[in-house]
């Protein structure tokens, strides 16, 4: 749907742009356009979130010998919309001794950080709201704000299970951020730029980065997937909400739409991690072997989404087959294995670039 608006006729967006500038003064026009873009991104956010939930439920069902949602609409496509309507209309309950201000603030931390993250996404060449020259760094920085929301929410809930969950989240995010950052840094050595659109353009000539950087790139990709899964607090790293240990973890005391914010943010985070993987390792919106390069009308965003969905299905595969790690094993994995491997890998990559061994 989005690629229809954004991609086929570039002139539609520019027509709207010109029309808005023609009917109102410049300041008002630019504000209007910003608001319009924000609304589009909010809608995108909701659609991505809801349909990833549906995808997760379907994927889970395929893994678990079930059918998954199939009652609301064909193939259950309206199931999550119905769920969202239910959550919106639910009463917001909380216990008595919460820290009201922080309790209400926490979901917004989580949701806003993911929303800012989504703004720099290069969905396609024409469809990127915010192409800054430190794109990768920015994305990485804002996506880690979310953990503050989880910590605050767990603290303000006045629930011991929530507090344990929040503290685990702190441990986990601080540790795994290192691995995410270092594995991306390895790839940045190869591209020489942090701007997301340029990272993709580099791959147009030399092939996808995972091929260009061969061994160290593959190692970096594997580390990125492990650490990225941990960053999103998904199984096998879902200690934050380990339901067999902590009930529901940090969002035990949240209900209705506030719970839904946490819930949607988790799925958007997964989308963000998968998108970074696609941009940095798999050539973003570029088609494999340039098969659609000649076709000018072909929506490039389609390639981007196909790749992202494949990475997301990989992450769902992790979730539905692996048991959960214990908290000390989680830290051992990061500090004793991933981090040293990552540092060595970074050196290895530097040597490869220095010796000009890249493909």
């Amino acid at each position, binding site marked *: 749907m989005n690629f229809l608006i954004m991609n086929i006729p570039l002139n539609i967006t520019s027509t709207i742009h010109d029309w808005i500038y023609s009917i109102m003064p410049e300041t008002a026009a630019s504000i209007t356009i910003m608001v319009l873009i924000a609304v589009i991104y909010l809608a995108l956010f909701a659609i991505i979130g809801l349909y990833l939930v549906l995808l997760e439920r379907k994927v*889970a069902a395929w*893994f*678990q*010998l*079930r059918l998954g949602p199939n009652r609301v609409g064909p193939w259950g496509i309206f199931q999550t919309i119905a769920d969202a309507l239910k959550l919106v209309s639910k009463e917001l309950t909380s216990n008595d001794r919460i820290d009201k201000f922080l309790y209400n603030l926490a979901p917004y931390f989580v949701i806003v950080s993911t929303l800012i993250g989504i703004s720099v996404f290069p969905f396609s060449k024409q469809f990127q709201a915010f192409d800054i020259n430190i794109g990768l760094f920015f994305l990485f920085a804002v996506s880690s704000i979310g953990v503050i929301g989880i910590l605050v929410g767990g603290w303000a809930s006045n629930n*011991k*299970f929530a507090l*344990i969950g929040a503290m685990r989240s702190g441990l986990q995010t601080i540790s795994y951020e290192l691995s995410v950052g270092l594995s991306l840094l390895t790839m940045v050595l190869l591209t020489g730029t942090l701007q997301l659109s340029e990272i993709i353009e580099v791959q147009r000539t030399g092939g996808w980065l995972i091929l260009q950087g061969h061994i160290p790139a593959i190692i970096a990709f594997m580390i990125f997937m492990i650490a990225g899964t941990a960053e999103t607090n998904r*199984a*096998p790293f*879902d*200690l934050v909400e*380990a*339901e*067999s*240990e*902590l*009930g529901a973890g940090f969002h035990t005391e949240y209900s209705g739409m506030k719970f839904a914010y946490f819930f949607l943010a988790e799925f958007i985070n997964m989308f963000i991690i998968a998108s970074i993987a696609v941009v940095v390792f798999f050539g973003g919106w570029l088609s494999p072997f340039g098969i659609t390069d000649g076709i000018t009308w072909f929506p490039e965003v389609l390639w981007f989404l196909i790749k992202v969905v494949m990475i997301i299905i990989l992450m769902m595969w992790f979730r*539905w*087959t*692996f*048991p*959960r*790690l*214990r*908290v*000390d*094993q989680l830290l051992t994995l990061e500090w004793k294995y991933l981090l040293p491997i990552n540092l060595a890998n970074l050196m290895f990559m530097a040597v490869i670039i220095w010796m000009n061994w890249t493909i």
Partner: protein
Amino acid sequence: MADQELETKIKTEEYFVNMGPQHPAAHGVLRLLLTIDGEIIKNVEPDLGYIHRSIEKMCERDSYQQIVHLTDRMDYLSSNINNEAVCLAVEKALEIEVSDRVKVIRTIISELTRIASHCLWWGVMGMDLGALTTYFYAFRDREYINDIFEETCGARLTMNYNAPGGLMFDIHPNFVKRTKDFIKHFKTKIPEYDRLVTGNVIFQKRTKGVGVLTKEDAISYGVTGPVARGSGLSSDVRKLHPYSAYDRVDFKEALLTAGDTFARYEVRIMELWESISIIEQLIDNIPEGEIKATTKAVIKLPKGEYYQRVEAARGELGVYINSTGTKNPYRVKFRSPGFSNLSVLNHITKGSKIADLVATMASFDFVIPDIDR
């Protein structure tokens, strides 16, 4: 030295957490009072009684035929084995010799119950460790057994298939064929269980060396069943004091010495194979004969004390009946495996993490109505 300095500077405090009575890992209404320092468990105090139904007291009110039906509700996952225990005790007191047909059918159904129970345990163990898919795999296979039971006696869980003196009804004509089909199906599924969970490196890390129970502790706490056998304590009643048709089949007692959660897991997987082997040996030659020995309509046990032990899915189940010669027992006492096994929980989980407690509890396979009765 540095650690000590840190400890004096940062003051930590122990705190209490109520794990249960409504908690996903408790599998029922077990309440654990945890004393925790951060993630480290200092003390575990089980608090029971949330599902106490005075089954032992109700037994004093009921006739011997009626007692059988109450025992379904103790360990509902091995309900048939509980029924069998009471029937064996009453038959022992009346000195009734049941026919070979009854013995063989009882053994087959008890082993099917054991497989069903272990299947459910396997699913739930995976779920407690965070692998949710195991639950659905296990229920797929358990469903076959429940269908077999439903066809034969009409019930899927609380079966009431045994009665003092024999069985309620004869087996369904399809029973043999369907059991064979199930065995054929299930033999291909246990390796699948192994591929999904047993070989998984995270699963092994989570279970090996966790919740170690030594053989000495197992003896002194009265631990039985797969938990004791995981610690190298030979305690299989089927082997040590054979009842029903267990003396005529050839099977190995699953015995491992490590005593950790993984050993208990392995023991149960081995028991699945042994149960299959027992059923295979018996299913082809179920002897002809009466399905119920003649008993009086009102059973009166002679004055005295009677005790019968059987191997339930969770360990040794003992039935003690004290009779004064009337139609009701004077006192009935069940020695349930879950209660004794629960008593050792504090001892082996002290000093471990919350996640270890959950893993250990999963490997103990508690059924709370069995503990509370």
